[in-house]
């Protein structure tokens, strides 16, 4: 066990030999590119298309393996496998697009059909490969769930360099991508060719998928494209930052996944990457200050306390008894009532202040109905915190003649 930990630490700190380091860095670059293009795929609401792409690589991958095995005797040459995968994935996207445009079938139906047919076809070819006696068959299964063990140095370099180039391309295209994702009609009026932009987006997704096959595996690469942006959405409300955060999450997931899988034989890299990404997603889901579950719960609790406090104070001002246990607890904790429910001196002052504040809010609604309608905090915060001082003075002036007093 201690040996495992040592191996993990040395790999994490890039001390585990040149090849492992190269593979881990290549995986990190791949994860960053996947997170970046995934952000746009997600915002374009085409996450499923990336699933179709990855499954559609299998017939090309297996076909290229057979072709190369028969011609050269070595079916495992990676550039050849990648070209084969890319070709059949491109065919898959074209099939999805053709079905969607030319028939009445919806895109999800087309994706389901294309994905399963291509994957089924690919599986048949893989079975044929396993019955051949060419050797190197084990190399093909590594592409299903991802395996970085025994990856050649040239392969790791190819992945790293291509991932970096794809990252640059995504960066350069980020603005047309963002415009098309947000509002494709408006983008068209600005002279952006929407179809070409979509094509570029799908082309980059395809490229990331293909170079990620060996690392993450074709069943799981879609997770590396989709989970990082979904997690990133919890941390930011701005498009360019979302790309950056998703890249970072993708890079960390892929890096850690590769490092962990290097510590023991037979650990599938793709599965480990997905598990790390899922852990980061879970942390985001719960702890994000922007849209996280925890922040949402705290907000609801604070809101509920505020409403109870306000209602309780208004009831005190009217001299009504308070029965709601939460209201009593809130007032008690603030020192506004005694244990027997009788108002303290501070409670009396707070109650009068609440009555005045309610009157000011009412005046605001009368005088400026449109602005008041856009203010969600009515009656929840003192009006002085919600409107500028000059407006507050106007509202106070409004109250005076009618005889309301503090």
């Amino acid at each position, binding site marked *: 066990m201690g040996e495992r930990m040592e191996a993990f630490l040395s790999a994490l700190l890039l001390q585990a030999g040149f090849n492992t380091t190269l593979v881990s860095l290549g995986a990190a670059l791949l994860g960053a590119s996947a997170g970046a293009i995934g952000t746009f795929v997600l915002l374009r609401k085409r996450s499923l298309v990336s699933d179709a792409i990855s499954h559609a690589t299998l017939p090309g991958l297996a076909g290229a393996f057979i072709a190369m095995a028969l011609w050269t005797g070595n079916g495992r040459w990676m550039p050849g496998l990648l070209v084969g995968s890319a070709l059949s994935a491109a065919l898959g996207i074209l099939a999805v697009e053709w079905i969607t445009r030319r028939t009445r079938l919806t895109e999800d139906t087309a994706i389901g059909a294309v994905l399963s047919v291509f994957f089924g076809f690919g599986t048949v070819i893989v079975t044929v490969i396993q019955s051949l006696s060419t050797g190197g068959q084990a190399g093909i299964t590594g592409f299903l769930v991802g395996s970085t063990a025994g990856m050649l140095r040239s392969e790791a370099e190819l992945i790293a360099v291509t991932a970096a180039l794809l990252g640059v391309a995504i960066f350069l295209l980020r603005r047309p991508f963002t415009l098309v994702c947000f*509002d494709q009609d408006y983008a068209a009026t600005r002279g952006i060719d929407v179809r070409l932009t979509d094509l570029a987006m799908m082309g980059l997704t395809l490229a990331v998928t293909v170079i990620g096959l060996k690392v993450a595996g074709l069943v799981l690469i879609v997770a590396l494209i989709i989970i990082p942006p979904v997690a990133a959405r919890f941390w930011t409300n701005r498009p360019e930052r979302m790309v950056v955060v998703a890249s970072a999450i993708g890079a960390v997931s892929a890096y850690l996944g590769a490092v962990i899988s290097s510590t023991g034989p037979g650990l599938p890299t793709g599965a480990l990457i997905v598990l790390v990404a899922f852990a980061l997603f879970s942390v985001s889901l719960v702890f994000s200050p922007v849209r996280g579950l925890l922040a949402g719960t705290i907000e609801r609790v604070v809101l509920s306390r505020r409403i109870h406090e306000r209602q309780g104070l208004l009831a005190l001002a009217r001299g009504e008894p308070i029965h709601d246990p939460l209201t009593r607890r809130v007032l008690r904790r603030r020192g506004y009532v005694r244990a027997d429910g009788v108002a303290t001196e501070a409670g009396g002052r707070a109650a009068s202040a609440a009555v005045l504040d309610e009157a000011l809010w009412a005046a605001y609604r009368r005088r400026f109905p449109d602005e008041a309608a856009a203010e969600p905090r009515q009656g929840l915060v003192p009006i002085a915190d919600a409107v500028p001082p000059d407006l507050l003075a106007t509202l106070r002036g409004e109250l005076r003649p009618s005889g309301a007093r503090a």
Partner: protein
Amino acid sequence: MSSTGNPRLAASNGRRLADDRAGSPFAIRGLSVSYGGKPVLFSVDYTAPPGAMIAIVGPNGAGKSTLIKAALGIVPRLSGEVSVFGRDVAKARPRIAYVPQRASVDWDFPATVLDVVLMGLYREIGLFRFAGRRHEEAARACLERVGMAAFADRQIGQLSGGQQQRVFLARALAQEADLYIMDEPFAGVDAATERAIIGVLKALNRAGKTLICVHHDLSTVPDYFDHVLLINGRRIADGPVATTFTEESLQATYGGRLATAQIDQLAARPAAGA
């Protein structure tokens, strides 16, 4: 405004219609569009006079939005030519600002109000650079003009319908265009927003810009616009509101679907210049 007159009359003054279209901010000829096998617009001709404030009016499904979308190349056209300031529409894009319908986008998109307005500066910022302080200031100035300066850093999902519409208008302002084409800018907005938007539009018009709005509220046409284009699948009539926005042409446009009471109410209003 209407003293510039009907371009067709000017055209008869020894010049051909083609010459006249050359000076028009927006001219279409023989525009036909269909969705699937269903024709929506059939051979529409229209030449907008320069500096006009134009309402495109017609019943639901008349092809009002389709007309502007096809003219701008958002939906494919079956036939027809479109010229903007005498040039092909594709070449005149920098001079056109389009304001789509509010409901056409997903407001949960990760963007702030400022991000959306910065999209209007897409060309100035360029492909490779990030938005600089100059661009942000320009965007904030546009938000100021629509009364949304205080909302610059809000997430767009938190806006009300009227505020969303104001943001779209601010984005169009950022483009500093000469022709503004808007799809129902007053649909589903509150009264204060409607006043704010019409104020901005009239100011643009006074500055010599041409504005074309798809508009559904017949009662405000005479107050807001000086020209009108009536369509229902085909062009029914166009011209100054005073002479074209009449009971006769409205009945022709709505095919008797307009209640007589509505027409009476409109006729009772002092149509501008009549």
